[in-house]
């Protein structure tokens, strides 16, 4: 799946192919119109940022930037949820992206669509452990194209009132966790609220936590990719072998969920958990905003799901909530770099992270202030974190749906075999 740098010279690009024909001329003409100079000779560039909760924050920054660069650069803030692939396929990518980063996004880098930002990355003073999160996915030889901006940490959200009412402590080992679930169930409380109607909630929650808590996710995928198309259920490194136990445990945990989990969706889960219908909920900090709106009095805390008998093994799931990149071929790269330079100002980045429950990415980032999340600060500081398996698998493999299938009755063994075969087929063709 990962390509060799040596076949660079023989690679084609879609743009080159189009360039030969009349259609290429037409497309170039159109894109010229779209990105051409705006009013008064100002260079017009687009900032692509559509994380809903952060739109107001970036809107403020954009107008501040536009005022300071009046007449020279004009930034258009594109917040439309849509397909980035389509923009790149039309050869009209945004000048600057402030976007979630995971395996799906790494494709843009791997196929040579993102420019080299090594100099700015150095200036941004990113913690090596955080930059490493970018490098866990395929990169482009010789380039640093993605600058982390914010990471989100997630674990098990729990209702502190319910825990106190039943005299429960946060569990530090797997057996303690199971015991706690049993106690809650015996007391007539739903231990865990699951929303199997939305496949992604299972994949980012219970199974990602189980896998991340039991094995080295990044290392596993690196070895798996290294195998190339020799992958498969019987290969040396395989899902069948590595994921079986985590999945069996995930099923064991899932057995403590609400009985109507199969038909519940993410929105239902937020409402139910906010109203205290269950003691625990496997979601990230993004759910807290909504939970807070539904019930501002709910006292929520968070802990990493312990998957072993050693408390020191506990790790949290993180994701690169926002990362910045500039595409390779855009009309005004210098203007885009100026905007990026402005956004990575430490004060702005810190303000963003405090407002959005994110953790800073610099060597000197201040700790998170929100009381609901600061239990996780220690894990971030000592890099006891992993990126979820669910965002490390190409989405063309319907992993989330597979997880949903297993949670509603499919066999784990059969599913992992399918996953291995899908992976091998993909390795053969890409």
């Amino acid at each position, binding site marked *: 799946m990962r390509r060799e740098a040596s076949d660079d010279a023989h690679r084609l*690009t879609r743009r080159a192919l189009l360039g030969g024909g009349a259609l290429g001329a037409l497309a170039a003409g159109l894109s010229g119109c779209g990105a051409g100079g705006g009013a008064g000779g100002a260079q017009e560039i687009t900032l692509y940022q559509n994380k809903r909760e952060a739109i107001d924050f970036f809107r403020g920054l954009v107008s501040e930037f536009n005022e300071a660069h009046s007449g020279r650069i004009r930034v258009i803030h594109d917040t439309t949820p849509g397909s980035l692939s389509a923009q790149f396929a039309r050869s009209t990518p945004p000048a600057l992206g402030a976007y979630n980063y995971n395996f799906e996004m790494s494709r843009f880098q791997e196929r040579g669509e993102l420019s080299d930002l090594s100099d700015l990355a150095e200036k941004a003073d990113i913690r090596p452990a955080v930059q490493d999160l970018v490098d866990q996915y395929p990169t482009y030889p010789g380039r640093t194209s993605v600058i982390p901006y914010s990471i989100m940490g997630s674990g098990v959200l729990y209702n502190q009132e319910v825990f106190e009412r039943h005299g429960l402590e946060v569990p530090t080992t797997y057996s303690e966790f199971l015991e706690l679930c049993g106690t809650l169930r015996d007391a007539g409380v739903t231990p865990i609220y699951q929303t199997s109607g939305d496949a992604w909630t299972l994949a980012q929650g219970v199974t990602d936590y189980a896998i991340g808590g039991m094995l080295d996710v990044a290392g596993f995928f690196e070895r798996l990719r290294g195998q190339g198309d020799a992958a498969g259920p019987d290969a040396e490194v395989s899902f069948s072998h590595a994921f079986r136990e985590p999945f069996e445990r995930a099923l064991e945990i899932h057995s403590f969920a609400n009985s109507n989990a199969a038909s519940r969706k993410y929105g239902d889960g937020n409402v139910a958990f906010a109203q205290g219908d269950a003691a625990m909920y496997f979601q990230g900090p993004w759910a807290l905003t909504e939970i807070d709106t539904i019930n501002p009095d709910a006292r929520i805390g968070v802990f990493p799901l312990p998957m072993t008998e050693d408390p020191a093994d506990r790790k949290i799931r993180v994701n690169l909530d926002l990362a910045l990149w500039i595409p390779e071929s855009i009309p005004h790269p210098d203007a885009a770099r100026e905007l990026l330079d402005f956004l990575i100002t430490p004060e702005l980045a810190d303000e963003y992270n405090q407002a959005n429950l994110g953790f800073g990415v610099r060597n000197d980032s201040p700790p998170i202030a929100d009381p609901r999340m600061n239990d996780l600060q220690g894990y971030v500081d000592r890099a006891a974190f992993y990126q979820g398996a669910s965002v490390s698998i190409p989405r063309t493999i319907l992993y989330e749906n597979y997880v949903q299938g297993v949670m509603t009755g499919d066999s784990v063994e059969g599913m992992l075999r399918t996953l291995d075969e899908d992976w091998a087929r993909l390795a*053969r063709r890409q």
Partner: protein
Amino acid sequence: MSTATEQIATTRADGSRVNPGRGRGRRKVEGVFYLFLLPVLALFTLSITLPAVMGIFFSFTDSVGFGEFNVIGFTNYAVIFSDPAILRAYGFTIGVALCSVVLVNVVALALALGLTSKIKGKTALRTIFVLPMVVSGIIIAFVFRFIFANSLPAAATALGIGPLEESLVSNPSLAWVTIVLVTAFQAAPPAMLIYIAGLMTIPRDVYEASAIDGARPWQQFRHITLPLVSGYVLINMIIGFKDFLSTYEIVVGLTDGGPGTSTVSVAMAIFRGFERGDYAYQMANSTIFFLITLAIALIQLRVTRGRARF
């Protein structure tokens, strides 16, 4: 009358008639008529043919839809035939299309029969039954999702109907039924309109004559109505089957391919390929799908020519 006929038509020795007017037209076509074709031809070529040819080209590469790619020959095609997800999508799509075609035509014909008989409020009822046509498919699907996931289980629980207490859309072996039902809800009205038009072409006196001979309603339906609307049945089958093969928005709104992967249609798989970085592979899939659809269309055309009466 007969002289007029002789003026415009001559009878050949073998008895077949030739229309000299049309024959002359075929020989001498004004060049300007080709000019009229040009805009449409250019549009069709630019927006359909060219992209299709490009898509077929990309099916021989490892492109993800943008950026650098390599030409990899027939690898995508070789992989597709061993991919259970793709094969399952074909099985699901063809199965749902067949069931939908049957259900849609039974419902539409029944409605059309009711709405062409002598009942009160015919116009109002026709309007009501045509309403689903006005609403977009994705909205219908979302509304039904709510009904199947929430309202129906709640009602079933209240009434104590055990099997329906669990949501139909989250049952892997029954979710396809909801897709067929909603497809029928949306596709029955246009089919019904075609049937109404067809039923109105049947002269009343045929029924009167058969009634005098003692035919019962079922016999009238079986031996008069059905044969006389058979052409319309075929039209509806063809239009319906072709539409249902490319079923997309109803699946997205109802199940989004789930639970698991039990309801992923071919069109959905193809579209997901572009969104999820498997562009070239799904281009190979769409090339195959195109050939299958083409084959079905040709078979259906042959059948129609042989049987349909218009």
